[in-house]
């Protein structure tokens, strides 16, 4: 019975996803969804990847990285070099962008991840700044005036499948034995170490995966906006992502998705009052730290089971089992 339900919900989800995908694709090609909202939709997708990957580092391993803008920049620039400067195909750019970001993550992570969370925050923040300064000084990628002429290769299917695959990757990682080890590091690193968990290895592993996905977000960003300037990848970008993660809940993957959607859409509507937008974000951050350090959803995930409980759609098995 349980097994059957499992498959049933998988099928339902796949169907819903497919319907959604097709509906949006139709909306875009028929012009029903205006260009402005297509842009926002793509931005939501990119932000979901950013928030989920930052959550993997900050929420699931209990580190505190502020270097996401840096990894995104590495991914964006390296992939743009592949397509714009060398004229090679897009799939290669995606691979190179993610690998470059992962490699940078490894280089940054190996020395700094032995630091405790709060030192790591400043060190990664510094890393982000260094990336910006270095990019500004490389003429090959345009220096301060930026890298131009990147082909516009991003479309709805690419965004959609990038988001779905990224979330799938993170989810599978968390539920694997590696992921469990990461959680143990977060809960009590000393105890984890005693139990024989190689804490540095798991921290670096999660960090590298997070960096690679931030790189993927960068690749999509580069090939959607078609121009890259170092000043776009400032600390404020990391901060926006941090707000999404905190609002959604540290340690909740679905929370990150919700956070990314809410903040992206809110930011589009708050266009008229930019300073207040930042004040609102700051207050959100403080409040979420004080009253709900675990965020909107905490570590809970929004699951079909939970939705069932809310709506009582399927009768009978309500509340029989939690997701874990």
């Amino acid at each position, binding site marked *: 019975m349980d097994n059957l339900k*499992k498959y049933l*919900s*998988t099928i*339902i*989800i*796949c169907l*819903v*996803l497919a319907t*959604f995908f097709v509906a949006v694709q139709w*909306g875009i090609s028929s012009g*029903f*969804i*205006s*260009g*402005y*909202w*297509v*842009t926002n*939709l793509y*931005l*939501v997708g990119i932000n*979901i990847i950013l928030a989920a990957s930052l959550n993997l580092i900050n929420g699931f391993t209990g580190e505190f990285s502020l270097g996401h803008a840096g990894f995104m920049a590495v991914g964006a620039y390296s992939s743009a070099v592949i397509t714009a400067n060398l004229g090679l195909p897009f799939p290669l750019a995606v691979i190179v962008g993610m690998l470059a970001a992962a490699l940078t993550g490894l280089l940054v992570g190996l020395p700094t991840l032995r630091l405790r969370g709060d030192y790591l925050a400043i060190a990664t923040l510094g890393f982000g700044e260094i990336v910006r*300064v270095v990019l*500004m*000084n490389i003429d090959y990628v345009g220096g*301060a*005036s*930026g890298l*131009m*002429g990147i082909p*516009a290769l991003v479309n709805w299917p690419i965004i959609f499948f990038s*988001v*779905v695959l990224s*979330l799938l990757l993170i*989810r*599978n990682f968390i*539920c694997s034995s590696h992921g469990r080890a990461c959680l143990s590091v977060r809960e009590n690193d000393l105890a984890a170490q005693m139990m024989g968990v190689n804490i540095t290895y798991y921290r670096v592993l999660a960090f590298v995966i997070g960096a690679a996905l931030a790189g993927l977000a960068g690749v999509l960003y580069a090939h959607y*906006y*078609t*121009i890259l*300037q*170092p*000043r*776009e990848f400032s600390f404020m970008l990391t901060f926006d992502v941090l707000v999404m993660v905190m609002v959604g809940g540290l340690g909740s*993957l*679905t929370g990150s*998705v*919700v956070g990314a*959607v809410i903040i*992206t*859409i809110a930011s*589009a509507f708050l*266009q*008229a009052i*930019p*300073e207040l937008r930042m004040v609102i974000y700051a207050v959100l951050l403080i409040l979420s730290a004080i009253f709900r350090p675990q965020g909107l959803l905490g570590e809970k995930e*929004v*699951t*079909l089971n939970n939705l069932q409980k809310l709506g009582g759609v399927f009768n009978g098995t309500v509340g029989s089992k939690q*997701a874990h």
Partner: protein
Amino acid sequence: MKKWVKVAALLVVVLALGLAAGCGGNAQKSAEGDTIKVGVNFELSGDVATYGTSCKNGILLAFEEINANGGVLGKKIEPLVQDNKSQNREARNIAERFVSEGVVAVLGPAVSGAVQTEEPVLTAAKIPVLAPAATAPEVTYDEKTKKVKDFIFRVCIIDPDQSQVMANYIYDVLGLKNGAIMVDKNNDYSVGLGETFKEYFTKKGGKIVAEEGFVSTDTAFKPQLTSIYSKKPDFIYVPAYYNQVGLIIKQAREMGIDLPIMGADGWDSPKLVELAGADNLNNCYFTNHYSVEDPSDLIQNFIKAYEKKYNTTPDAFAALGYDTAYLLAKAIEQAGSAEPEKIQQALENIEDFEGVTGKLSYDEKHNPIKEVSIIKLENGKQKLIKKMQPKH
């Protein structure tokens, strides 16, 4: 297995919500009305907010005047003002929004990078863009493909024109041969001016003895100035924005460096005098699009109207914004229609448009051919020294 399915479910729900909100936006698209809608996309907050705000102020003043005089082709102009937060991606989002709202042209943004980011959207929609202050040559002309961007027009002179005129003035008129350059490496405008200045100045036979850089967030410039001074230049060229230039000039004078210091239109702000101190600005020159000292009626009337509306002296960005709005009005009139593509045609053929910032015609790369003003600062007051025509 179960969990990811649920994750995905949420994703769908949430994306659907976003989409629902999205379709709401579409409804705003209005039919052909009795006004002409013009997109005004500027940096009203963020790090270059002062330029965007000045441009916007100039534009709104001009539209007000135009509408008070009966509008264009019997219709009033309706400016739709949006703030792009000094972010390129926001500039593009706003361009998308303008397309769906059915504007006939877009004015702005102020800085080159933002104009380049919005360009693909508006070119695809065949809507002309008038950029008041985007000075980078690549904005209207793609060096790689050797193609002119048909729908982009700028109102300001391009960067190389300014550095060329300044190089000529320093070498020929002031007779100085050894220069030092100090640029804001964060800023494409500053880097571009520095590079082209070096090219023109050395071509004439001058020598650049020192080159230093800084980043926009810097406040301590004495280390670089010490190093520059030890190379014994005759002058220092600092083509950056006034907020850093003010500090640089002040710190240079504090160190006893009394060399002439030169710059470009980024200097033009009343804040410069406040930051550097009026005395320290003696022996400083910069190139600009116009001068408030110019006695011509057109300029003086503009200054009076601007001061009345905003209680402050207009800077070059405000003047460029003002001209941009009038240029659009003229193009619509010449086209005899407010259709975007006809406006684009009219802009291509504009000749001798008389603006506050000079007489404007376009060359084949959509760059205006205009005179450059050289301005000297005396006790904190701007003095127009000379107007020079750059050679193309």
